[in-house]
């Protein structure tokens, strides 16, 4: 109860362990991790910057000026910011509607589960699903535009549809961010305001909304970043009229084979992305207004909304939810008919196609995902553990570096990998390894974050008990720490798997004849206008991802330390 306990209580006293010399196994692990981080995070980024800013061994910004001088690139830059800002505003509004309805609407649990399911769908889908359904609905032969409204020659491509598709794809991030914020605002505060004679709308404006502002800002920034990084939606829906940076960079490289131009466009993309990341981290660090007191919340229904308002909110959510479900139903339908919009005869031909012609992509993707899963899960737990408990020296640096690839738009990471690993000394282009490495280092931060959060709940005395019983640090990690952070491991495994099945923005640059991916095949199908197989691929991916998530959740519930809660998948901002 002396200095030690006092120290752990106030958290101001760094224990003397910090000065303790490092256990050899631990030191070796830290060194190995830094080597990997250097190789797969720092090195590609530096290589990309050097391609962008070094000519003949001399630093120069002439190519940068040349790129910025081109009106189409300037337009792409401004378009990206515009799209990001609009997606941020509309997505946050939609997320707030859902979060507020769930937190204050006193909905039956069944309805809440339905909302959760509808908002989860876009997060676990391959990137083109909304876009495909948009074309099916609003295209020249679209179900709504052509069949329902009888419009001819409508143009689905451009800002509006890109914005709508991105909002529907990314608003769940805002919902997941805002829901705990709104639930955390004690109903008592609102009750208090009522008791002081305020009217409901006034309470909402003067109490609820101000308390939610940090959460709203956070959600806006996350959506802005997600839109900024989005490659798939604009590629399909933006068309030539609305170029954005990720697609411009992609076309610069795949169309013009101009690595340098791609690198410079990536740097342009990097600037707003970095600013948003820093701002967002600032909001998170400052935290929300804490109104959680540790006392059980009020059991009586919160009277924040009138029955009328409640009905309105529910209707709004239901409309959006139904629209999402409609888009997915359309996708399923399109995968089962001959040619959607033209020939609606039932057929399994598209599935036959994806399991024959598309078999290589499916097998490659599954192999890559299955190898990446355990690696990513273990990497996440290891880094999380070292950030939480490792040697003090370099702990924060490790936390920052391991988040870089996650925070950067995928296009940048892909181009950086392409530049760094195309030639000796480390030539990995064309291998599965480069894709696996990209996924592991890009999508493990969910596992890392969860591990850090869990480690903060695991008392240090457990590890000390293990040591006092004769176990080395490696044994302690294996027998005590690892089982206790199993939920984080599963979360890491889950996210790496989902992303391996659905991501494209980085890995589009890394696929090869030898190794390809389902998402890349979907893109190819889209450009060849074979939308049926694209839809079938998407349905397949969604089915597999949901099955694996269900499996992981079942495993999680059976863990001896299970709390019965559903896993926090940490998909936000991915």
């Amino acid at each position, binding site marked *: *109860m*002396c*200095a*030690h*306990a*006092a*120290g752990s209580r106030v958290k*101001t*006293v*760094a*224990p*003397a*362990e*910090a*000065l*303790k010399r490092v*256990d050899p196994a631990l030191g070796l692990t830290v060194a190995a991790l830094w080597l990997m981080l250097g190789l797969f995070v720092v090195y590609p980024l530096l290589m990309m910057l050097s391609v962008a800013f070094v000519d003949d061994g001399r630093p120069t910004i002439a190519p940068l000026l040349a790129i910025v001088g081109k009106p189409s690139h300037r337009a792409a830059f401004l378009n990206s910011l515009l799209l990001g800002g609009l997606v941020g505003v509309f997505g946050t509004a939609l997320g707030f509607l859902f979060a507020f309805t769930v937190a204050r609407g006193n909905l039956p649990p069944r309805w809440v589960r339905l909302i959760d399911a509808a908002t989860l769908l876009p997060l676990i889908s391959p990137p083109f699903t909304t876009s495909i359904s948009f074309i099916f609905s609003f295209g020249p032969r679209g179900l709504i535009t052509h069949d329902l409204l009888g419009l001819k020659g409508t143009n689905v491509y451009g800002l509006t549809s890109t914005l709508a598709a991105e909002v529907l794809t990314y608003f769940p991030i805002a919902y997941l961010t805002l829901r705990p914020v709104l639930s955390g605002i004690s109903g008592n505060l609102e009750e208090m305001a009522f008791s002081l004679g305020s009217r409901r709308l006034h309470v909402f404006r003067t109490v609820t909304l101000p308390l939610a502002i940090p959460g709203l800002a956070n959600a806006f920034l996350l959506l802005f970043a997600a839109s900024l990084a989005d490659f798939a939606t604009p590629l399909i829906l933006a068309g030539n009229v609305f170029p954005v940076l990720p697609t411009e960079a992609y076309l610069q490289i795949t169309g013009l084979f101009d690595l340098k131009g791609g690198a410079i466009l990536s740097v342009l993309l990097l600037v707003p992305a970095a600013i948003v990341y820093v701002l967002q981290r600032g909001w998170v660090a400052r935290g929300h207004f804490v109104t959680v007191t540790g006392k059980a919340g009020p059991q009586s229904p919160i009277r924040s909304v009138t029955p009328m308002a409640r009905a309105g909110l529910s209707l709004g959510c239901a409309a959006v939810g139904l629209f999402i479900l409609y888009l997915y139903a359309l996708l399923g339908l399109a995968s089962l008919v001959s040619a959607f919009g033209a020939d609606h005869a039932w057929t399994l031909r598209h599935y036959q196609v994806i399991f024959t012609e598309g078999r290589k992509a499916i097998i490659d993707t599954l192999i890559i995902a299955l190898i990446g899963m355990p690696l990513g899960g273990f990497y996440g737990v290891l880094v999380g553990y070292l950030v939480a408990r490792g040697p003090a020296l370099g702990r924060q640096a490790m936390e920052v570096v391991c988040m870089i690839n996650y925070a950067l738009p995928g296009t940048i990471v892909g181009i950086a990998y392409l530049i760094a690993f195309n030639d000796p000394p480390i030539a990995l282009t064309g291998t599965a390894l480069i894709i696996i490495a990209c996924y592991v280092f890009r999508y493990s931060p969910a596992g890392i974050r969860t591990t850090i959060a869990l480690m903060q709940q695991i*008392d240090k*005395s*457990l590890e*000390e*008990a*293990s*040591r*006092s*019983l*004769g*176990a*080395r640090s490696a*044994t302690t990690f294996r*027998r*005590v720490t690892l*089982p*206790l952070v199993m939920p984080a491991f599963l979360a890491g495994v889950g996210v790496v798997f989902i992303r391996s099945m659905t991501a494209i923005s980085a890995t589009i640059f890394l696929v090869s004849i030898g190794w390809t991916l389902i998402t890349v095949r979907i893109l190819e199908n889209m450009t060849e206008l074979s939308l049926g197989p694209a839809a079938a691929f998407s349905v397949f991916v969604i089915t597999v991802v949901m099955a694996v998530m269900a499996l992981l959740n079942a495993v999680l519930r059976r*863990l*001896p*330390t299970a709390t019965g809660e559903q896993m926090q998948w940490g998909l936000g901002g991915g």
Partner: protein
Amino acid sequence: MLAGALSRHLHRDQLPVNPLAIRLDHVSAQFQHRVKGAIAALRDVSLEVQPGELLTLLGPSGCGKTTTLRIIAGFQEPTAGRILIGDRDVTRAEANDRGIGFVFQNYALFPHLTVFENVAYGLRVQRHDAWHIASAVSDVLSLVGLAGYDPQMPHQLSGGEQQRVALARAIVIRPSVLLFDEPLSNLDAKLRVQMRGEIRSLQKKLGITTVYVTHDQEEAMAISDRIAVMNRGEIAQVGDAEQLYRRPASAFVARFIGRANLLPAMVMSVGAAGVEIDILGQRHTLPGVQSGLRRGQTVSAVIRPEALAISDAAKAEAGLLGHVTSCAYLGDKCEYDVDLAGTAVQVTKANPLPSDRLHPTTAVRLQLPVDDIHLLPEE
């Protein structure tokens, strides 16, 4: 309960162990405080624990007792000094290489393992065979009164049961040294008394050298062979319970162990017959010799509240005159606060009868116990 279990189990080969001494040699430790910088948690602590002895580290919060224990365990490194277990210098040895058993304040049971696996943990690490592990775990669980609890999970157990599992887990690996960090502080008062008796009898039977940290002086006195009282990162005094109580080395120890009155006094003469002192204007000759005193020296006279005899001034003639300022009736005793011409004095009267009760403002006389006064040089 334990005695019977012990006699049944003591013939087993794993008990008792070969006890080793622990020595701390000029040990210092520092913490880095973000605001205040380096803070000394331990200052030049030297201490020896005899083989088979139970020594308690006792002191208020922040005194360095837990730091001392963690340094012995190897969870923290001292910034200076040496730690020896037996003849071996373990200052640089890892915690897993010191042959210690550690019982934590929060028990630190592995939440994902059953009671059996918790206790078996250390044996598995030592790669014992399954048969040995099964029999050793079963023996030690019987020893702590938890036979049959093997398949339970820690969260299914009560606090006392968890404490026993933690104890079983620590002793099953036959440590040469057993360390306790406030093991009873999370238990309720009655269970605390029962468990401390069980820990003590177990420790005696096993003969394991033990260091026990507590801030509860009654617990320390009940359980220990010797007590090291700590204050501000230093050892204030080491001794058995009676030495600490009757011959405290400092005002801090006098006040920390039990309750004490420290009355200002002056040495009038030092002779073969004893020491003559002046307390509040009255002269007393204390029998026996206390070294280091000289004539004219001012000292503090340590007098325990229960050593003072209090009586109604109306019925007594001798003694210091004062009056009662407050009285608390506690059943087995009455605690009085008495004002002696401006000096506040605590007095305890055991087994108070209704007729003896003295109420506030009553004039009283206090008889000083000349055989029971301990003198401390003014600090």
